[in-house]
């Protein structure tokens, strides 16, 4: 027995001792690349792009590390605090400001302008990225954009003889009509859990037609038209939406939609592969409906991009890789597979865009001169805590009828105004 124990211990020690250590030292540069949304859908796409890059650049090797999207902010924060950042990382504008605030990223304006990407990036995306930085510089090279859409069950609509809604009032009518609680079928599903308020804000501004987040330094979130929409949505809860909604994070919301119990779901192009895998051609997408004003006011979704980290020892090689990923061929490949809007304008003429109804529709909206973009103030460091940690529970209270929509919005508006004031004073 004793001999066995010793043998096992020795084996364990031996096994654990090996397995660390870096390779390299033969003139080759090894880059680490962190994918901010690692998973079975995206990893093969990056692996393909990486192998293309490595064939074209035999002296650079790229190591792919997939980070689960739910933990990516924590992972970046820990890495920055501990000084172990990658060379290139995928970053979304929703937390870009945090990384910039920690001085982790290198500005990319000169690199972009000095290379093949000059003037090739969608202006609206570039503008969104600039807005996240106090000095207005580009800290990521935008690669992909998303847009809010309503995924809807084309087959249900057809059976009921309904047209997909263009205005919010039509939307509410459709949702109510398609609801049959006894058969566990509902017209709509509200995202009431994690990530709820951000989506709610896009809905509110789409309805109210308010075209700016701040008017004279004051947040416009508390506008009565915004409150009207929140009231209408909260009204649908339990009447045209499942009771479970109040807790719905993305995972639960999409499980309901792909499970077939809901007619319409508000999310964005990113869930394209999930919904089509489950529902095939029964599902289609429409943009967010417009409100009584008829204006199309869009709060843009976070933009995806690639950042080069300050601590990287191979910044030139890192940039080469990032530039490659956003070159027209790679950008087209990636966005086609994922179903999102390519940042590289050369991709506009690619044949797959015409065939992809939802991307075409989204691009159309972004390029339409009548569309008004209302960028959310993600540059405010407190933006995510105001619209997440503080407000998500309060929104649930609105759904439960314990708080009024107007009070809820006013509370947020006050905090946003204060944060904005602080921001302006500092810059």
């Amino acid at each position, binding site marked *: 027995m004793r001999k066995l124990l010793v043998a096992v211990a020795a084996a364990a020690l031996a096994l654990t001792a090996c397995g660390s250590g870096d390779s390299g030292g033969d003139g080759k540069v090894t880059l680490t690349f962190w994918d901010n949304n690692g998973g079975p859908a995206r990893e093969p796409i990056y692996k393909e792009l990486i192998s293309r890059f490595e064939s074209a650049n035999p002296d650079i090797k790229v190591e792919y590390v997939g980070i689960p999207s739910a933990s990516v*902010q924590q992972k970046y924060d820990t890495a920055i605090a501990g000084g172990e950042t990658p060379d290139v990382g995928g970053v979304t504008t929703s937390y870009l400001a*945090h990384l910039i*605030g920690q001085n982790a990223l290198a500005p990319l304006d000169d690199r972009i302008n000095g290379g093949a990407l000059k003037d090739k990036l969608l202006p609206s995306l570039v503008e969104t990225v600039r807005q996240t930085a106090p000095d207005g510089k580009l800290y990521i090279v935008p690669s992909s954009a998303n847009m809010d859409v309503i995924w809807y069950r084309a087959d249900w609509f057809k059976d009921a003889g309904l047209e997909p809604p263009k205005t919010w009032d039509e939307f509410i009518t459709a949702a109510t009509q398609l609801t049959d*609680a006894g058969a566990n079928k509902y017209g709509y599903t509200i995202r009431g859990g994690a990530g709820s308020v951000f989506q709610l804000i896009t809905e509110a501004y789409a309805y109210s037609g308010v075209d700016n987040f701040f008017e004279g330094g004051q947040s416009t979130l508390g506008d009565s038209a915004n409150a009207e929409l929140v009231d209408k949505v909260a009204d649908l809860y339990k009447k045209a939406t499942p*009771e479970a*909604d109040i807790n719905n994070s993305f995972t639960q919301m999409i499980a309901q939609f792909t499970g*077939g119990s809901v007619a319409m779901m508000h999310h964005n192009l990113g869930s394209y592969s999930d919904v089509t895998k489950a529902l095939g051609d029964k599902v289609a997408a429409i943009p967010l409906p417009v409100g009584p004003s008829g204006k199309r006011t869009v709060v843009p979704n976070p933009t995806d991009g690639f950042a080069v980290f300050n601590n990287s020892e191979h910044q030139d090689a890192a940039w080469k890789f990032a530039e490659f990923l956003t070159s027209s061929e790679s950008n087209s490949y990636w966005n086609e597979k994922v179903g999102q809007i390519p940042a590289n304008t050369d991709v506009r003429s690619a044949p797959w865009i015409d065939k992809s109804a939802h991307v075409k529709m989204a691009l159309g909206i972004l390029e339409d001169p009548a569309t008004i973009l209302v960028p959310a103030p993600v540059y405010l460091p407190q933006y*995510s805590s105001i619209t997440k940690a503080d407000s998500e529970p309060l929104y649930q209270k609105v759904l439960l009828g314990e708080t009024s929509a107007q009070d809820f919005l006013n509370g947020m508006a006050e905090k946003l105004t204060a944060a904005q004031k602080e921001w302006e004073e500092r810059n």
Partner: protein
Amino acid sequence: MRTRTWAPYALIAPTLVLMAVFLVYPIGSVVYYSLQRYNVTQPWKNGFAGLDNFKQMLFDDPLFWQSLAFSAKWVLVEVGLQLVLGLVLALIVNETFVGRGVARALVFSPWAVSGVLTTGIWILLLNPSTGIFQVLSEWGIGSPGTSVLGNPDTVFDALVVTELWRGVPFFAILLLADLQSIPKDLYEAASVDGANRWRRFTSVTLPHLKDAIILSTLLRAVWEFNNVDLIYTLTGGGPANQTTTLPLYVARQAVDSHNFGYGSALTVAGFLILLFFSILYLRVSKFGSRA
């Protein structure tokens, strides 16, 4: 055995070294940050804050007290139920019957399942459209679209059940192992003395298990207090903060809001509370003293 040898110190030395290196510094740093204003994304505001964080926590933060109260309720209910069920199960699988090996293996198996997986399975199970309630309603039991997690009246019970699923095996395993060390002849002696099954249980089994029960409930209580993965994923602390425990609140502050200073203060509060109750619990239950 009272000895003056160096033997005990040598035996605990490696453990002490590990603790010193890997726990003293991190704990110290949490205490340090609790006295700071430290927000990772607004570094211009960082600085010494003295007891400000604590003052805010105690006097200006109703969610602190609410989450503390909920934590207490959660721990008491969970540990109590897990203990009782675990004990009953341990007693049952301690008996001889056909198939007891299989039964034992099955009873213990939820323990082997990872947290990420447990939450994933329960999301599927409790999902109103693809979960068990949907299936039941198709068979005529209950109504379609039942959402136990969305309903403020049922959410606590649903969470209790999901945590029970993976917590009971802990007690079952431990208590079964402990039951093994009761000499069978004690039972015979008691039976010869005329004791029935219940008396044998209370006079032989329970006293022998006393220390194990005290320890395991304390350790499990601490674990349940601090562990948030199930609640975080199933309800996020909702609806409307109804199921927010103190550590969940800490996680939201430190991770979502990047407010590390305040999060550290909340952690220190949790630490002190746990320390206080542990000492109290051990004293009152006279742990270590034998009947």
